[in-house]
């Protein structure tokens, strides 16, 4: 329990580092957002208007006052009003996009982790065998391919040429979001190609990680003891070795959540999927700073929650942590 509390304290601290970075980065850059907007009017604004723009971007008052104001806004989840989808508040757009990204990345991460880990277990158990010497390098190389290219090719082949899959969107127009099987099936159908393109470039990492950790564990004394006790191969493989080897995997899974959520923007861009990445790209094009900053905070929060969950999973799986 103390262990978990210590971790929670760390995540709170990390969150404040992110908030602080988010506050200071625009202010140390040449020309903050409000200065840019004011400059784009080329002196056609009166003082009151300039002041109003500054106030809406929180760049009035001393740096300390601005900071306190910003932290207060963040804690209230108030990210201002979107300049693109005016007058929609940024947070409602943000959570709409985040839901679809979560669907996409959630399915993709789960599948990639399961497939990669199972392949890694298999490769490590039969190390030096055919599967290990052929598929380990191939899978890891897939991991180093650009998501952009994989997504483009899948889109070209299956959406444009063969027309097996839709050209975009998260679900067909005219369907109202609900939990009925028809809608869920439609969402899955639309998510197939995006999920596949994330899956192809990400399962190799889990394969290699699991394989390397497991190979080291296979030579440990407890495995020899298990063998001497006459336990079945299956039991040794899953209950003894894989259970230990999966601990570092879970930690890196949590660390990769933030990266994957951010990395989905390429996939969403290619498949025209209405996720966080798609909105972020639109926000970049129209310089919607409040959205760009809010997506960083949201992704940071998701990454921190994922790490907390992984800490809890580690405590459940590894009795050694329960004492500390």
């Amino acid at each position, binding site marked *: 329990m103390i262990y978990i509390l210590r971790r929670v304290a760390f995540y709170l601290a990390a969150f404040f*580092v992110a908030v602080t970075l988010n506050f200071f980065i625009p202010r140390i850059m040449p020309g903050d957002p409000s200065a840019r907007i004011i400059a784009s009017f080329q002196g056609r604004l009166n003082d009151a208007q300039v002041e109003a723009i500054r106030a809406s971007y929180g760049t009035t008052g001393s740096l300390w006052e601005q900071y306190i104001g910003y932290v207060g806004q963040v804690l209230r989840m108030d990210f201002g009003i979107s300049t693109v989808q005016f007058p929609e508040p940024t947070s409602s757009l943000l959570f709409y996009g985040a839901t679809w990204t979560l669907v996409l990345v959630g399915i993709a991460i789960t599948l990639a982790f399961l497939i990669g880990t199972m392949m890694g277990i298999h490769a490590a158990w039969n190390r030096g065998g055919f599967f290990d010497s052929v598929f380990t*390098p191939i899978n890891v190389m897939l991991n180093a391919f650009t998501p952009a290219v994989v997504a*483009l090719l899948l889109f070209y082949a299956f959406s444009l040429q063969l027309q097996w899959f839709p050209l975009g969107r998260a679900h067909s127009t005219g369907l109202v979001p609900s939990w009925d099987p028809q809608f869920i099936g439609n969402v899955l159908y639309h998510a197939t190609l995006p999920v596949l393109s994330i899956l192809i470039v990400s399962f190799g990492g889990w394969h290699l990680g699991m394989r390397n950790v497991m190979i*080291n564990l296979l030579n440990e004394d407890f495995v020899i003891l298990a063998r001497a006790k006459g336990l079945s191969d299956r039991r040794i493989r899953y209950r003894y070795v894989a259970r230990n080897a999966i601990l570092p995997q879970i930690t890196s899974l949590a660390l990769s959540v933030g990266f994957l959520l*951010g990395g989905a923007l390429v996939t969403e861009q290619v498949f025209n999927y209405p996720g966080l990445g798609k909105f972020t790209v639109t926000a970049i094009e129209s310089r919607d700073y409040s959205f760009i900053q809010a997506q960083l905070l949201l992704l*940071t929060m998701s990454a921190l929650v994922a790490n907390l969950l992984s800490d809890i999973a580690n405590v459940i799986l590894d009795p050694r942590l329960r004492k500390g």
Partner: protein
Amino acid sequence: MADITHTPPLTLLDRLDEAAIASAAPSQAELMRELRIKGRPGWTSKLPPSLAAFVTNPKGMTGVIVLLGLILFALLGPVFSEYNPQRRAGKPHVAPGYEHVMGTTRMGKDVYTQLAYGGRMSLAVGFGAGLAAALIGLAVGISAGYFGGRIDDVLTFLVNVVLVLPGLPLIIVIASLVDSAGPLVIGIVLALTGWGWPARTIRTQTMSLRTREFILAAELMGEKKWRIILKEIFPNMLSFFMGGLVLGTIAAILAEAALSFIGLGDSNAVTWGTMLYWAQNNMALQVGAWWEIWPPAIAIMLTGAALVMINFAVDEITNPQLKASRKIGRIRRFLARRGRSADVF
């Protein structure tokens, strides 16, 4: 009646002889041939052990050769081209042929020339950011691991924050605030956000090294701290540093491509990522101009694959059990051929 043909009990030596005769003991050379194990070439004996292990690793050397080929292409490629990568060189979407080896883009720019110049930029950003991240990781990791105490607490906190904060969204925030995020800006930001992993590995390794006798001996001899770090600890961190460098470079090249692809980069700069960006914007695949999209795509994939190969070799040096596992398949089959139980590993 007593047994007259009494045989003396077998001694241990006799048994060993018997075993040797039973298996018709092959010579070492025969064994090595059958197991397809080659001795190390003589010239590698002059190299430091980890370097010798690298140059005799087939995967690692394949990666190095492919990578050197790509670097040579980026450096020398423009020499064989009369075109400017930024200017139009012919009609739009000319198919590959004599005039344009890899065809032209929608804008009529020569793809071969762009690929070579873009290679310079992409590889420079990738290696620059990877190297910078690995160096920061090395400095932070060794300091945290060696000095311990308060310094370790502060540095470990920083490392954990960098690891936990999502890098790509942070880069997007920074890049969107700069007017046009050129390759240099992207490289710097990638370096500043990518040093978490190498720092963590090197810190753990330094901590285990600090308690070893040779470090203690150096300390007792009154060696200066910076000297111990440079002369005793750093050489042992080389392969971990290399690992961080390789992984950091892969990440940086992929991230640069992704950022340019979504249009965050400076779209006037020529990199492999911006080539993909324009190809996607110009619907190259839809209009059948495959030559606009495949060259940068294949170049990025080849670079990634070569670096992954090198990383396999580095992994086998830092973790000898991985290297041993490569030969286990052969040894098992060898034992099976001789009717021995292969269940020894």
